[in-house]
């Protein structure tokens, strides 16, 4: 095909709608919307083939602001609706916008089942650790003992770690980024877009009204490099303001934080392998943030794309049966089994 027949590349503007964006001023969702609108035109996919599906919550207003096909469904059920779309139209590029309450509380069941089936859906989980649209109750990712409108004496639930949960469900692509790390976020979204199976991206997002500063220890300039480790496939796990700390394997299989120097060099560190078929290593990384002195990982934890997509095997099964039996003959089907003639 000559380049002359190609339509002009799409622009960010073409993915914006005429609808007034109704998130609170200063909300992290604006940054995420901007990143997605920037990345979509770069994917080489026709605009009509994008479908953005969402559940309920602040994040789930997302489809209204994307000039694609969009379906704002009901609370928690977006993964199931999206699964139905993909089953019938595996060719469509289906993205799902969801939040910590939508995906992990009311829709937890659908989230894990979508991931274990490896439906080819890109999931953007906006994690602000709070219920925003219902005005400030704790969420399944809120820290223990959080004081909110519904928990004036502190919450009693231990939070979910979305990344661990997704890896536990054996999601084939699991990544994390941050609303304010624009270029990292765009790169992460591009990695997700390139993945054929389920791609789960947790986006740490600030709710400046009900949970302001939830991620400041990761996003503030001074704290950032000490508390965040940026994962890159094939590169050693190094972090720290002076890139002087790293993650090393211990003989018992666990990992530890080490200071570089004094005989310890980058060659002693774990080299990040996002493509490992088994999820155990990624799970180990996902737990670092719960441990004293360990950094919080961002980037692609796991990207193993050898598992067939659910919608493909669903359609393949039909093709296989048709190949074996031929296209079904309706008259034959209606007459199946024992029949008798009345004259």
């Amino acid at each position: 095909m000559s380049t002359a027949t190609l339509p002009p590349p799409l622009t960010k503007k073409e993915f914006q709608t005429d609808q007034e964006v109704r998130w609170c001023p200063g909300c992290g969702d604006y940054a995420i919307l901007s990143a997605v609108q920037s990345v979509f035109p770069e994917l080489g996919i026709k605009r009509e083939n994008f479908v953005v599906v969402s559940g309920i919550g602040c994040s789930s207003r997302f489809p209204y602001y994307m000039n694609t096909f969009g379906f704002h469904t009901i609370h928690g059920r977006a993964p199931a609706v999206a699964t139905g779309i993909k089953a019938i139209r595996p060719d469509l590029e289906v993205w799902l916008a969801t939040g910590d309450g939508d995906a992990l509380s009311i829709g937890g069941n659908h989230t894990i089942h979508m991931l274990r089936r490896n439906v080819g859906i890109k999931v953007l989980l906006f994690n602000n650790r709070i219920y925003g649209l219902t005005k400030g109750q704790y969420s399944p990712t809120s820290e223990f003992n959080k004081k909110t409108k519904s928990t004036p004496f502190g919450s009693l639930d231990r939070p979910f770690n979305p990344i661990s949960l997704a890896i536990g469900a054996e999601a084939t692509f699991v990544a994390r980024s941050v609303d304010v790390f624009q270029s990292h976020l765009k790169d992460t979204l591009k990695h997700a877009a390139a993945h054929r199976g389920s791609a789960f991206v947790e986006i740490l997002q600030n709710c400046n009204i009900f949970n302001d500063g939830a991620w400041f220890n990761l996003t503030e300039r001074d704290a950032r490099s000490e508390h965040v480790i940026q994962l890159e496939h094939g590169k050693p796990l190094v972090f720290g303001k002076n890139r002087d700390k790293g993650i090393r394997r211990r003989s018992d299989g666990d990992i530890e934080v080490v200071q570089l120097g004094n005989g310890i060099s980058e060659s002693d560190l774990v080299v990040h392998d996002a493509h490992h078929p088994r999820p155990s290593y990624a799970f180990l990384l996902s737990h670092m943030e719960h441990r004293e002195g360990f950094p919080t990982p961002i980037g692609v934890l796991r990207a193993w794309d050898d598992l067939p997509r659910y919608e493909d095997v669903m359609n393949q099964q039909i093709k296989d049966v048709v190949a074996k039996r031929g296209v079904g003959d309706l008259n034959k089907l209606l007459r199946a089994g024992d029949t008798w003639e009345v004259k």
Partner: protein
Amino acid sequence: MSTITEVPPVKSKRQVIDSAVIRFAGDSGDGMQVTGSQFTNTVALYGNDIATFPDYPAEIRAPAGTIPGVSGFQLHFSASEVYTPGDAIDVLIAMNPAALKVNVADLKANGILIVNSDSFAETDLRKAQVTSNPLEDHSLDKFRLFPVELERLTRRALEHLGLDTKSMGRCKNFFALGMCYWLYNRSVEPTVRWIDDKFKNKPLLVEANKLALKAGYSYCEATEAFQISYEIPPAHLSPGLYRSLSGNQALALGFVTAARKAGLTLFQGSYPITPASDILHELSRYKDFGVMTFQAEDEIAAITSSIGAAYAGALALTTTSGPGMALKTEALGLAVAVELPLVICDIQRGGPSTGLPTKTEQADLLQALFGRNSEAPIPILAPATPADCFWVALEASRIAIKYMVPVIILSDGYLANGAEPWRIPDESEIPLIPVKFASDPINFQPYKRDPKTLARPWAVPGTPGLEHRIGGLEKQDGTGNINYEPLNHENMVRIRAAKVAAVVQDIPDAVPVGDPEGDLLIVAWGSTGGAITAALQSGCAKGRKIGHLHLRHLNPLPANLGEVLKRYKKVLVPELNMGQLIWVLRAKYLVDAIGLNKIQGRPFKQAELEQKIEEVCGPREKSR
């Protein structure tokens, strides 16, 4: 209607009769459903009209020999038209004391009672909580009792095969079936064919079951146990090719046909639930028809995946029963709001909550009508017989696509598992279901309506220039943009209601069977139709002016229904619930209807209806 109880015993070897009701009863492990289905298949193939009533416990294997473990299968077969599985039974096969205890009350006086006498030991009686042995205490004297050593005789027939005792015991139902074939002069061949196919990879079981079947037949011939046998000639059904069909099978075939006629992929999202699961089992076999079945993680995902499939352009279906229907409630509201075609089958069962999973009831009508938040009307259809489910599946699909609405089908456990002969239509007799996907981007609006049906366009993702957003939030008509303005909301609520009301243009006027006006109109819906027809034909309509109106369309109701109700002095509404249709009729038409309500997990008996009709009509006027 003559039955075998009127036949004088002995003398002639073979007696021609019009109809019989036979019930196989045993432990849920005794294979009673298979035995009953085989007998049904054989007499149906011969040309008898049939109606069946499988009645089995919710427990897969309750403790053997106990009352809760009793499983039954009743068949009414006849040389005339059959409307019900029959009130009282002519022949009862009881495999143990528990089965005898549960079922003997329904056996007619002088009826044939075949019992497996090998299972009437002291321990067997105790398990059934029976204190004296009914085979010895003369409590069964009014029946023609045939105690048969089913286990010992079966073992003797199979002993040379080298099977273990337990496996031989499992074949005793076929021995009993063989006896029944002799009793009604039917060939064992259809069942032999079935055994060959069913156990094709287990030659020893093929041999054992065939031997047991033939041994039962020969036993009757050799011992002249019954002294008499019966012949029920073929029924005079309208000409055509027939098969036996259950309600769930009929729904499955109906949807495959609807998808073919619409040129769409059939997508079924479902979660296993009794008594609806068989539709999923059935449809999952039809991949060669492009059918996509999705066993979802729960009832909610079952319907929401179907909504996604409908959005993407499939003929979408979700199947469930009452408790699952309750879980789907919120998603039904979404389907109403986004105006996508979807068919929901609720195979009703006894409730509330888990209730009576394997027993029938009609108590989900008000749930189907109103069981959603706010104003969310949905068209509702109800099949009247097992085979009617086929045609209702087609009609529901047609309405869903034409009006861009979810449509509910209310079947029930009795229709789902019951079977009847079905005249198989030719594919060419079934009209196409027109489907129009939007494709023109010029002036495209997601909620621009067809003036006649008020349907919005079906604009599937992937269509260039039609990018748009839909969702559960209130929207502006036409553009589909989010809109919370008071008058807009009222307008949208009224449009959605008007759209469902407009379906009435595709619904024929109500025409009662029987008298078009007069003393009594019986208004009913769903699976009660057969029993009502049988009651009216039995004579209680004689000398009275009675009409029977069986409603297939429960929302919207036929346009002339109010006028029809006024033509009769009295209106009787029999239902297997506390009075739901009657509640609607009273509210909508201000008619002082009389209810007949039964909530026992079982269908109406013909006699119950006859009694109520007599009571409501009062004594006959002499002038007639």
